[in-house]
Every structure is written in C-alpha cells, then in structure tokens.
C-alpha cells in the first residue's frame, strides 16, 4: 500500500511532465485504457471467478475503451484502496478512476482532478445487526461504528452524530473487506457506508439476513468517474462516453437493437449512431461501439446492481429524469 504511494510520488516527481501530456495519444499507443477500480465491491467493480472485472464502474471504463479503441475488453484494471486512488490518478498510473468516488468541492478543486459526471447517485446509510433491535439511526447514541478510511463517509458520520448530539466510536479500516469482517466479528454495532455498498457488503456476510440496512440516508453521494485536470480532450471523451450510455437508454437503444437502429430515420438517434466522433477526436463508430459492446446505462444498471444481480437495488434516484429519477444527460448534438 505504502509502496504504491511512494512509487506514485516518485513518478510524479520525476516523470511528471510526460504524464500530463495527451492521455488519448498514450491510450492509443498502449492499446489499452488503464482503469482504477475498487479492491472488490460487488456490483460496482469486482473480479468474477474467471478473473474478469464486472460492475457499473467497470462498464464506464469499458465504454471508454470501446469508444477510443473499438474494443471494450482493452482495459487494464488496477485495484486501489480508497487511500491510494487519487495518488494513482495524479501520478499517471491510471487514466480513469472509476471507483465509486464521491464528487466534492475539495476533491474537484484541490487535488488536480476533474469529475467527468455521475454514474450513480448514492447516499450514506447504516447497517446494523437485527438482534440489536434498532429501527432508526437516531437510536444509535454511544454505538461503535465500522467504516473505511479515506472516504467522505468519515466526515459525514462525524457531522451527523454531532448535529444530533450523539456520541460514537469510529473503528477505521483500510478496505471495505476488513470493515465487513470487523462488523461480522462484532467489533462494531453498525457499519456505515454508501447505501449501495451496504447491500453489496451484506451479501458477503455468512448470514445476510441477520443484518438490516436502516432507512436513513444522511448524505448526498454522487459517484462518478474521475480524470486528471488539464487534459480536456480526455475529459470530454470520458464525460461523453458516460452520456452516450445514458442517452441511449433514454432513446430506447439497447445492445440487442443497436444494429437495426443504425438505419433509424429519427435524427436524434442518427446523431447518436454516428457523425459526432470527430469533435471528440474519435472515429464515427464510437457510440455504436459503446452500446453494442457495453450496453446502455439501464442495461448496465440492471445487470450489475439491479434485478439481474444478487444485490437487487431499485433504480430510485438513478432512474431517468423522465421516469421519476434524476439521471439526466445533456443531448448529443
């Protein structure tokens, strides 16, 4: 862990000027996108039994690879802990950080990074054991809390307990895996994290039914892909790859029907199918490749965290803006 930070720093110190150069050219030259993901968070980024990475965050990187290189499989994944992630991106070890990272002012403004959009609207919640008999987070005065180091979670938790005049003991671990182990061993009364993560950690418990997720959501956690500041071309590519996925869902273009949609007479569909690539520095098939290889946003959601997955998370805030949610992408034109 420490080693990679040091290497990152050393790299930033010595070869900094090369890393800041054109990411797009570097990606084309390497013929793969270097993507930073989590150390294992089911539904967002986790390796399956064959070693293939899967999840919503993984799909963002795959979409970028499909857009730039024409092949969604040309991605090299680097698992990172919450503490390592920004240094890895700053030092050029990765091209995109797609690791359930919350967009905040401090991170956007003082780390030399840019958030390219939001691929999941989340909020911080609490998970407790059923045996405790707690119905609301307001009953948790004096509890011990397991959480992961280097997250916005730590700050929200302190704010929430302070605002409600309650006390707590924070037990801070390095990875979310250790957090759930500590919770399972009874080190803490509750575990706090983004709600989506709570569901994905819950299925790691020996008896998932013994734990409940409390209804309170105590923060806004817009999660999205991050790139280095100062490379606007690459920033645009990542941002519009994500937007293409969201727009495709809105227009009803799926992995299955994208081939037939190519001949659509609808001008909006036609624009998404081609003609805009040049402005991004890509070829005209960029969005077609994304949808045919990765699918639209809704497909990615359902397969990884929704009804097609063990997590069974509802769309909620992440439904499209015209279906009761707030997922809204600027038009492609």
């Amino acid at each position, binding site marked *: 862990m420490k080693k990679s930070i040091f290497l990152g720093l050393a790299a930033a110190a010595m070869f900094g000027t090369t890393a800041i150069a054109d990411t797009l050219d570097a990606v084309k030259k390497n013929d793969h996108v270097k993507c930073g993901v989590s150390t294992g968070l089911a539904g967002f980024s986790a390796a399956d039994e064959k070693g293939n990475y899967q999840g919503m965050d993984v799909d963002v990187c795959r979409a970028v690879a499909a857009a730039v290189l024409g092949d969604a499989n040309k991605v090299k994944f680097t698992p990172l802990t919450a503490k390592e992630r920004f240094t890895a991106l*700053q030092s050029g070890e990765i091209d995109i950080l797609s690791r359930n990272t919350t967009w905040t002012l401090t991170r956007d403004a003082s780390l030399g990074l840019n958030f390219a959009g939001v691929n999941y609207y989340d909020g911080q919640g609490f998970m407790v054991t059923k045996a405790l008999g707690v119905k609301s987070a307001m009953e948790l005065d004096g509890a011990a809390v397991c959480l992961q*180091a280097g997250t916005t979670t730590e700050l929200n938790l302190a704010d929430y307990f302070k605002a409600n005049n309650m006390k707590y003991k924070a037990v801070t*671990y390095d990875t979310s895996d250790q957090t759930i182990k500590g919770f399972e061993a009874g080190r803490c009364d509750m575990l706090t994290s983004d709600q989506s993560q709570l569901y994905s950690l819950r299925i790691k418990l020996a008896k998932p039914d013994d734990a409940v997720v409390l209804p309170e959501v105590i923060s806004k956690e817009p999660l999205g892909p991050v790139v280095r500041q100062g490379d606007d071309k690459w920033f645009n590519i990542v941002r519009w790859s994500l937007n293409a996925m969201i727009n495709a869902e809105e227009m009803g273009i799926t992995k299955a029907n994208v081939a037939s949609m190519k001949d659509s007479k609808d001008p909006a569909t036609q624009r998404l199918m081609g003609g805009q690539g040049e402005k991004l520095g890509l070829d005209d098939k960029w969005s077609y490749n994304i949808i045919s290889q990765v699918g639209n946003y809704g497909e990615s959601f359902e397969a990884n965290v929704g009804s097609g997955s063990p997590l069974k998370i509802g769309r909620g805030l992440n439904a499209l803006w015209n279906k009761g949610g707030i997922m809204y992408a600027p038009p492609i034109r």
Partner: protein
Amino acid sequence: MSTQQQGLTPGKPPIWNDPHYRALFFQILLIIGLGAFLYYIVNNTLSNMEARGISTGFAFLSERSGFDILQSLIPFSADSTYGRTFFVGLLNTILITLLGIVVATILGFIVGVARLSKNWLIAKLATVYIETFRNIPLLIQIFFWYFVVLRAMPGARDSLSFMDSFFLNVRGMYAPYPVPGEGFNFTLIAIAIGIIAAFLVRSWAKKRQNATGQQFPIFWTSLGLIFGLPLIVFLLSGSPLTWDIPVLNRFNFQGGTRIIPELLALLIALSIYTAAFIAEIVRSGILAVSKGQTEAALSLGLQPNQNLRLVVIPQAMRVIIPPMTSQYLNLAKNSSLATAIGYPDIVNVFMGTTLNQTGQAVEIIAMTMAVYLTISLTISLFMNWYNAKMALVER
C-alpha cells in the same frame, strides 16, 4: 651531495596532480551534483503540482479535520485541526512502541533464559516458541491476533467479568478508573517519599556491604517503603479514592477505562514476534560468557541465582545491547502495520485519513517519514548511551 638530494626529493606537483586536492575536487563535485539533483527533484515536483492544480504547503494543518479517532491520548474531536491529528497519531505510535519494547524485552529475556534451562520440557517449549513466531510474517500474526481472537471473544452482553468491575469482550478490556478524592495528595507525597527513601537505603546498604561485607534485606525494605508507607497514609487520611466502574448500557460499557482490542492485538503480535528475536539475542549473550566465570562464582559461594544476576547477566549485557537496539528499531517501524487492523497510529490517522481528506501527499508523507526517523534515532541514541554505561570499565 646536496644537489643529489635535491634531485631525489620530488618537487611539489602541480595542483591538478596533487592527490590531496584531486580528492577534494571530486568530493566537492559530488556534493554539487547531489545538491543540483535534489534541487531539480524538489523544484520539478513543486512546479508539476502547481501545473496540475494540486494544493501545496502546510496551511492545511490548521484546518478543521471533521473526523473522529478511535483512541486519543489528548483531547480530540471532529472540530480539532489536521495538525492535531498528527499529534494524536504520533502519541499512539509512541504508546505502542514503548509498550511493545517493555513487553517484548521481558518476554524475550524469560524465553531466552528458558531455552538454556536444564529442564528438558522448558528448553524445548522455548525452542518451539522461538522457531514458530520468528518464522511467520508479522502481518499475518497481527491479523491472527485481531480477527481470530476477536471472534473468540464474547459480545458486550455476555462479557467475561472479574469481580463485577473488570470486563473483557469483543470491544476491548474495561477496568475501573480511579477518581482521587480530597486529601489524596498526601498518598501521592507518601509514594514519592517512599521511592526516594528506598534509593537512599539501597545506596547506604551497598556502601555498608562494600565496607563490612554485611548484607541488608534491600528488597523487602524497599517494598515496605514504596507500598507500605503510602498505604498507611492512605488509610489514615480516610481512603480518599473512589472507583469509576464500567456499567453496561444499551450498546456497551460506559465509564471506567478501556483498552481497545486493536491496541491489544497489535501489542500481543508485536511483542510476541520481537520477543522471539530478543530471546535468541539473550541466549547468545549468555553463552558468550565463558563457563569459567560461573565456576569461579560458584566456588566463591554464590547461589546459582546470584551467579546469574551478579556475574553472568552483567557480562552478557555487553553482547546483548547492540543487537537489541536494532530489534527495538524494528519494533518501532513495524508498529506502522497497525493500519491493517485499524489501530489509530500515525500511518492510519495522519498518512491515511488526513492524507486522503486533504490530498497533500508530499507534505504528509515527508512529515511521517520524519517522525519515524526521529523515533528511531532517539531509540538509537538512548541505547548507545546505555551501551557506553554498561561497557567494560578498563582498570
């Protein structure tokens, strides 16, 4: 004749051929080169960070931290500054280092002596201990003591209790905390007097023994002075001390004092691991004292335990202390593995959470490295002083 001599003495060579100046020249060149390299690295880092919009400088140390820390030896809350998180982490690192050194040294001495025991079972048990714990990576041992032992502990409601005031459960060890009442100061004064008196008695007894050969029961007298005297004063002043006993409430025990399981697990792992190395150092030190010394001591009529205490150990210390220093340094540096189980040491708190919230990696890692360097150099200095004190006095 004189002309011949003149021809034989080499004349002063030109300055570029003089080996002395030549060596100096290359040394200066090397220093300039090194300085230029360092300047380039620092300058390049700063300008790169500037170009990418990464904040630099130490202003962040006075900003509000906004997070909480599990164990703090100084008052700390989410309203405290990032600078204070540095001190909280630093103190926790020093705490585990000091505790670890004390426990590892005691345990290591016992095991080292035990391995030399004439009792077959004790010697073999010590050998098994050393070979087992010396050969398993420390990180794995830390995980073992934390997760395995944590699981074996009962929950808060089924705590193991001792006399209804000491409790042990998965959240740690709870003990009553003394709350001094009015007049407790007299007892504290009595303790101080007792300790000073014990020292005086000891030096008087030593002088008398050197002069007359008569022995004095120093141990029992000191015990009486250090514990007995304060006890009498304490009782006479009306027992002005109450205990804050931990009480189980909804989630856990409140009140009293608590040792968190992270500290316990880390302390156990670090001291057991380091003790295995110390035991071997102690054994080698004792074996280095020649057998003639023991034979001489015994023939002078010393008891075997006196022989060990007065003859063997003092001589063994000269062999033991230098390698012991490096074990202490290892322990101090290994304590940074605390971050793996969430013990809030400087790596976990400052290089972990603070670094991530502020993003100022260069400053924070430099400060953390400086801390470990300082701790290690301090231990080294102390051990060198102690080594010089214990060294053979040439007469």
